[in-house]
């Protein structure tokens, strides 16, 4: 116990204290754009194998939170640690362990599926041969092996998303971030993504943080963080959050917590 306290005095300066450092620890995170406070004292933690749904309306601060975790820009207050590495001080170590699926489509439509994946592997410094075997495996798991040589432009929206998940896993991150990944997808593609991420968490111990404003995506097996106007209103396993909010369903729990209705 004493040792843990000693570690928290200077978090992330020297790196993780042990290999057991949790995938993601966010502590007292605050961020403002000018006068507008986007995030207020946000704290939560993800453990190995956790599938956590970050639920909030548009404008709740989900994208800001993701931008800070991926270090698009630095946070002003608090700390973000990925497997013990503080993102501001050790961005390289932290980012190397992180896989991201962004809200906007990010495939290069001028290139083939394989070229997109090789490009990503190169950004992470993977040798080409190893990248080839890894991307083969990842693309197979999302069922798009026969499309590897095709131009990314020829893929449907759902297929592009599947390629993006495959891409996010090529450097074998242990933490996966997904920012509203199902927006604009049909029911089947959406279900595929949900199932795929569920499998990754359960069978491979990946920790996943999945941002959404769609309450249907929050199932009882997941954990949930309710983010509203930059603040966390509730956090925990879904059944527990529902119970604490004196509600019968997640939808009712959200309405009770925020005083606003979710679509």
């Amino acid at each position, binding site marked *: 116990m004493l040792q843990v306290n000693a570690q928290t005095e200077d978090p992330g300066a020297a790196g993780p204290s042990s290999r057991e450092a949790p995938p993601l620890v966010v502590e007292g995170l605050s961020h403002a754009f000018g006068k507008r406070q986007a995030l207020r004292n946000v704290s939560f933690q993800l453990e190995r194998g956790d599938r956590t749904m970050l639920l909030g309306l548009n*404008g709740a601060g989900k994208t*800001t939170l993701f931008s800070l975790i991926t270090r698009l820009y630095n946070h002003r207050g608090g700390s973000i640690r990925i497997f013990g590495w503080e993102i501001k001080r050790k961005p390289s170590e932290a980012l190397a362990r992180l896989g991201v699926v962004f809200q906007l489509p*990010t495939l290069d439509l001028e290139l083939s599926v394989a070229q997109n994946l090789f490009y990503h592997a190169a*950004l992470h410094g993977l040798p080409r041969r190893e990248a080839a075997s890894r991307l083969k495996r990842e693309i197979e798991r999302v069922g798009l092996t026969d499309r590897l040589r095709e131009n990314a432009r020829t893929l449907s929206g759902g297929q592009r998303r599947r390629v993006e998940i495959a*891409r996010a896993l090529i450097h074998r991150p242990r933490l996966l971030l997904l920012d509203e990944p199902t927006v604009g997808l049909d029911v089947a593609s959406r279900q595929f993504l949900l199932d795929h991420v569920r499998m990754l968490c359960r069978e491979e111990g990946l920790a996943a943080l999945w941002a959404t404003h769609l309450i249907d995506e929050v199932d009882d097996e997941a954990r949930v963080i309710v983010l509203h106007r930059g603040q966390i209103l509730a956090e925990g396993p879904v059944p527990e959050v529902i119970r604490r909010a004196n509600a019968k369903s997640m939808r009712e729990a959200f309405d009770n917590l925020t005083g606003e209705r979710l679509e």
Partner: protein
Amino acid sequence: MRPVHYYRCMRGIVWREALRFLNQRGRFLAALVRPLVWLLIFATGFRFVLGVSIIPPYQTYIPYQVYIAPGLIGMILLFQGMQSSLSMVWDRETGSMRTLLVSPLPRWYLLLSKLIAAVIVSVLQAYVFLIIGYFWGIHPPRWGYLTVLPALILSGMMLSALGLFLSSVIRQLQNFAGVMNFVIFPMFFASSALYPLWTVKQANEKLYYLCMANPFTHAVELVRFALYEKFNHVAFAVVGGCLVLFAILAIVGYDPGRGLIARRQGGE
């Protein structure tokens, strides 16, 4: 991250830029046709309007198309630099910039790799132009083709760094029209690309000083002298200095702590 990771990352970025360039046939053609139109039509038409006297680095009277060839090479470098800046803005709008910036390698290194990728593409274009120009009477000394290489790289890097810096400042994609109007055209016309500066000085002294203050003028002169196996100290110093300046501004622009990106995300 070890050096080999750095190497693979840069190789990947250069490879992607080259693929994109080759895949976009239209862009390749446009990039080549633009200076050729100037060379084959404009220069021929102006041949008898503008007389060019003997000025360094030339040792004889030269036809007009020989004079503007380095200026048109400068144009290739300028357009390419701005085009890569356009693609950066585009990348940021579509989000593929985000995939670049979550790479674990340092951000300055990612920007440097982008810069080098852009320069390699523009240097190749410049050589294709020189080859075509050879059949249009542009015959620099044989070694000039080699001595021009460092000048192309340095000037290309300077202009691409300027483009990178602009891309960190410009938010919207449609502003490329603005870049054309407010950056490319003024830089191109207020320079020694199309006319020797002594003629400008005779016409308007203020414009002359403006041209002298234009880094593009010095990029063109560096290329012009290098193509004739000569070294222009002033041009070298100005281009080198501007490269450092623009590179620093670009790195600051993309810095996660201070950068303009950090301050501009309020709309989300």
